[in-house]
């Protein structure tokens, strides 16, 4: 889909971007009233392929699944700045984009499809930031907002991890992606999970250390595998731009405080945070819950009890299925 063809999108940075291509996928059927559409927002490195074989949320999206495609028309667009079919950087000449810019593009797509109001916007991690932005920037364009494993702003520690990832890419271009991914992946998992799965076990059940700089521990070869695989699947420029976009995301700064941020929202909010997520911890979601309670607005919050850390919402989990079902 093409948007901003006649008039370019004015970006948060002040620059403009026109003729934007958006890759998207849909599941289910849009009803006559166009009232049953759900927008799924993907994470930093994912794409529009949410459901179906190899879909990043296939456990939750499909006929009679938690997000039931026999009832809902489900859409997922690849975000602006990504490298999975939508317009994104091919060099550092591309303007820096923000989460608000990504959502402006999604909003234009939804309007092109003739949808006035979405039944829900659902997303985890960076997708949660998009869901929140929908509710704040286009309050009448959605009825339900479900940010999962999300935050209103990155912690200093999370900013630091992002900076290291980007520096690796600045220094080593595509090879830097390996390090960025190894680091990122570690932050998406919990320490307990890593200990459970890999412990200090040695690679190939070797009896002793190699006394060399090859991968000795299982965790080393696991991360190396993840990093190398990622290197061929993602674009280093896209990674830089998207990492910058989540680093810039800060509702407190943008609106003064969270109460002001949510003041004009009309959608129902349902926050889900993951018990073992130390990157975007439970307390971050609860800060936003607090703001909505103080405004007397409808809000719900549940903890997803998962040992898998920040990425826990991407794995099959019966509790998450039940929570999503209950909200829809």
């Amino acid at each position, binding site marked *: 889909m093409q948007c901003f063809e006649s008039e370019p999108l004015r970006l948060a940075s002040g620059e403009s971007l026109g003729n934007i291509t958006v890759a998207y996928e849909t599941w289910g059927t849009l009803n006559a009233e166009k009232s049953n559409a759900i927008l799924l927002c993907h994470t930093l490195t994912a794409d529009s392929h949410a459901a179906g074989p190899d879909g990043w949320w296939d456990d939750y999206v499909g006929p009679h699944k938690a997000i039931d495609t026999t009832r809902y028309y489900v859409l997922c667009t690849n975000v602006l700045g990504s490298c999975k079919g939508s317009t994104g950087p091919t060099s550092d000449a591309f303007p820096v984009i923000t989460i608000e810019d990504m959502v402006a593009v999604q909003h234009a797509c939804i309007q092109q499809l003739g949808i006035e109001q979405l039944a829900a916007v659902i997303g985890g991690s960076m997708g949660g930031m998009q869901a929140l932005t929908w509710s704040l920037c286009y309050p009448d364009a959605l009825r339900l907002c479900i940010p999962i494993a999300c935050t209103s702003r990155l912690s200093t520690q999370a900013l630091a991890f992002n900076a290291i990832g980007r520096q690796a890419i600045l220094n080593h271009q595509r090879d830097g992606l390996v390090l960025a991914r190894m680091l990122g992946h570690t932050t998406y998992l919990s320490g307990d999970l890593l200990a459970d799965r890999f412990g200090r076990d040695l690679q190939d059940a070797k009896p002793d250390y190699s006394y060399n700089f090859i991968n000795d521990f299982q965790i080393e070869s696991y991360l190396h595998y993840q990093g190398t695989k990622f290197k061929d699947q993602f674009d280093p420029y896209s990674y830089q731009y998207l990492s910058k976009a989540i680093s810039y995301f800060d509702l407190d700064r943008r609106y003064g405080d969270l109460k002001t941020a949510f003041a004009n929202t009309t959608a129902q909010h349902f926050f889900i945070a993951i018990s073992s997520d130390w990157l975007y911890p439970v307390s971050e979601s609860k800060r936003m819950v*607090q703001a909505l*309670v*103080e405004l007397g607005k409808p809000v*719900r919050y549940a*903890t997803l009890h998962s040992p898998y850390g920040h990425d826990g919402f991407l794995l099959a989990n019966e509790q998450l299925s039940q929570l999503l079902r209950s909200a829809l």
Partner: protein
Amino acid sequence: MIGFQDSIVNEIHQGARVLDLGCGNGEFMELLIQTKQVIAYGIDIDPNNILTCLNKGLNVIEHDINSGLDLFSPNTFDVVIFSETLQEIKDPVATLDAILRIATTCIISFPNFAFLPNRIQGLLGRTPQSASLPHSWFESPNIRFLSIYDFKQFCHRHAIELVKPLPLFNAAWLNAIIPHCLDNLVAPRGRFIIQRQA
């Protein structure tokens, strides 16, 4: 005289901002929404209760009261309902202090350890079990054992005003014939409206 639930409903004004601490399956929130059109939020720690409330469309927040109530700013609510939970709280002083910080008024109920059948069981050398203390010692979530008398003393010492005692029995006729001075002996539960002392 009227029963307990009705008496609470009567105490809550139309459209009040209500927080139900330990809201369970959300039954009471539903009642208050129906009868008083309140803006109700519930807090519970049990994921099954959270799911039940979500399915009823209630504003429920999964949270452990023992981890504090800093989640809310002062005077966020008109009323906090704190029903049958005090006896499970690690730090009752801090919790009651927090409740009366985030709300003007608290409606509280707790099992009365000095209830006559409990006293008799105690004298017989057994850990009391009764309608308001239904658990065996090895499975009880209760960690605080207090009587109505204890609670009154506590409030006095901690600058908490007992605005009024609420009807103690679910059956209206019992409330009509039993005077409040016998509460500590004959009531299975203590039920009060409390506020911070002015």
